[in-house]
């Protein structure tokens, strides 16, 4: 496999992982919204309510930064990162 193909395989792997986490917190947990809301979540809010106010939203922010860092590492590993800094 060429260097470029390997790079793309790894990038696809990272994409799948990112989308899996995204799926859980944007869709998956809301399949059980009613049941989860019986549980007390962080700061004492009902759990599903907390996810819709803060939880899912905050997780998405962290997820994007995590994804960006991982992708940068992959690019560096194969020598595909851009020269110069932002």
């Amino acid at each position: 496999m060429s260097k470029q193909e390997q790079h793309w395989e790894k990038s696809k792997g990272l994409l799948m992982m990112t989308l899996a986490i995204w799926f859980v917190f944007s869709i998956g947990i809301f399949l059980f919204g009613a049941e989860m809301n019986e549980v007390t979540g962080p700061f004492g809010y009902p759990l599903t309510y907390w996810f819709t106010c803060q939880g899912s939203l905050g997780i998405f922010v962290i997820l994007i930064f995590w994804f960006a860092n991982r992708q940068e590492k992959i690019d560096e590993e194969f020598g595909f990162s851009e020269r110069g800094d932002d």
Partner: protein
Amino acid sequence: MIKGNFIDNLPKVYGIYTGGFLGFIIIMSIAEQMGMTAKTIGICFVAFTVAIYAIIGYLSRTAQADAYYVAGRQVPTVFNGMATAADWMSGASFVAMAGGIYFKGYGYMALLVGWTGGYVLVASLLAPYLRKFGCYTVPDFIGTRYGGNLSRFMAVVVLTVASFTYVTAQINATGTIASVALDIPFQYAVYVGLISILLCSMLGGMRGVTWTQVAQYIVLIIAYLLPVFWISNKMGAGFFPHFMLADEVSRIAELEAQFGFVKNSAENLKEVPKGLAGITKAHSAVNATPWAFISLALAMMMGTASLPHVMMRYFTTPSVKAARKSVGWSLFFIFLLYSSAPMLATLSKLSLIDPSLPTGIIGKSIAEVQSIDWYQNWNQANLMFVSDFNGNGTLELNEFFMGGKAVVLATPEIAGLPYVISGLVAAGGMAAAMSTADGLILAIANAISHDVYYKIIDPKAETAKRLVVARVLLVVIGFAGATIAALEIQGILGSVIWAFDFAMSGLFFPLVLGVWWKRANKEGAIAGMFLGLVSGAAYLVWVRTGGSGFLGITQLTFGIFGSAVSLVAMVVVSLMTQAPNAATQKMVDEVRVPAGKSILGKQH
């Protein structure tokens, strides 16, 4: 005071600007103490902020295509994040979101999840790859990746339909705020709003819009957060509301159980002015089916990833790496406002319905409520209404009605905050609506001037001529939007959600598969865009004219149907026709690695 390159001095410039704005708020509050009228304060806030944006717009003027279309590709990540957040958060987010949460609870919260979750798709599927491509507009990517004028033109059509639906709502919101703050009739206020919008974008294009959007973000976030924190502290609910309102949320649930949700008869409801609603849904309980919630969230997420005015913000970063990080910063800045909206809704609701609070009105006598100053003000503004349906002389939960906008606009006054806060909120709403309108008008005008005029009609046009065409289009589209807004056809939020559905119907799969599926070809993309948009629009018309719909897809989520048709059409037609040629396949390979030259040159 400031030496050297503007870009290197950004933190300093906007630091001084933020300090100046805070100073202005303090001066206004002193002026209020000294007897300045509420009306004058409102005018000062709106006029002062709009004047600042106009100055920034003037200073950003340019005669270069690169600066006009993509701000010279030198906007640093954090500032691009702020600009995107302002671009993204519309007048509707600012004025209506807390109200939506207040009235509809869980079912509405799907929008919060959708409008943030979509950024994960933007960051992972699209933004960095489109940045590597080096395009000026979204149709520029479609046209170059798939080839041919027809595919480029189809992309312009989808972009125009989606963005135009959205922009009328924003000009409408700008007009509403200008009409209230400046006390002029709405028909004129719409054009005052439009001129303010054009002042930001006319001379500097994307460069002007970028630097005004950063300034607008700073105003709108201060205007949203300051009242939320202030009210929370004043009510004794906690000094950091986001972490401390659990007791208030459970108190609301307790009161809901105590009062019960009494259903009003149709005859009684006729008395209630149009657009006002009562509290009929639980605040924190799950009141929607999983599919109703998930389908709305999904439609908004895919729509987010297809809206061109957001995507084009990531064309302005210096590198691919910066584009990825910038999406994270965008969502962070959006998160600051979105996570505060439910807190504002909670504080607003509790302060009105809890009889044990001094501001609570439920359980008081109707005559007493009608004599409260703020009730009279907002009743006059057609945003509040009470009526004694059961004739017992006391106000019940089902006898109190409010407009969605009142949650943001009236809560500071109800909580007893000084009027300067209301002026600040007006300036924030104006900033939110203006920044989104600018991004949208620019997206449409750029697509038509660059993709239709330059790429299709006259590829030999000089830069100067191209930029004249771009600016004329900007004004024409702005006026068209304002004229439609002045007719006041739809409510603000209905048309905003439709824009997401139109965008995802026509553009989501052609964009994503353009990067992630090499086999996707021109014929497939054209079929995907055309059939997606047409079937989505047809579904909307069908449901609006009494059709029953299927699979629980409503007029708010018709994009799910449209994009499914688009996906099937694109895959089937692509596989039935010839694979893209070797040059195109190589181009896709190059898009997938950040290093190396962009596909399209610096000047194209």
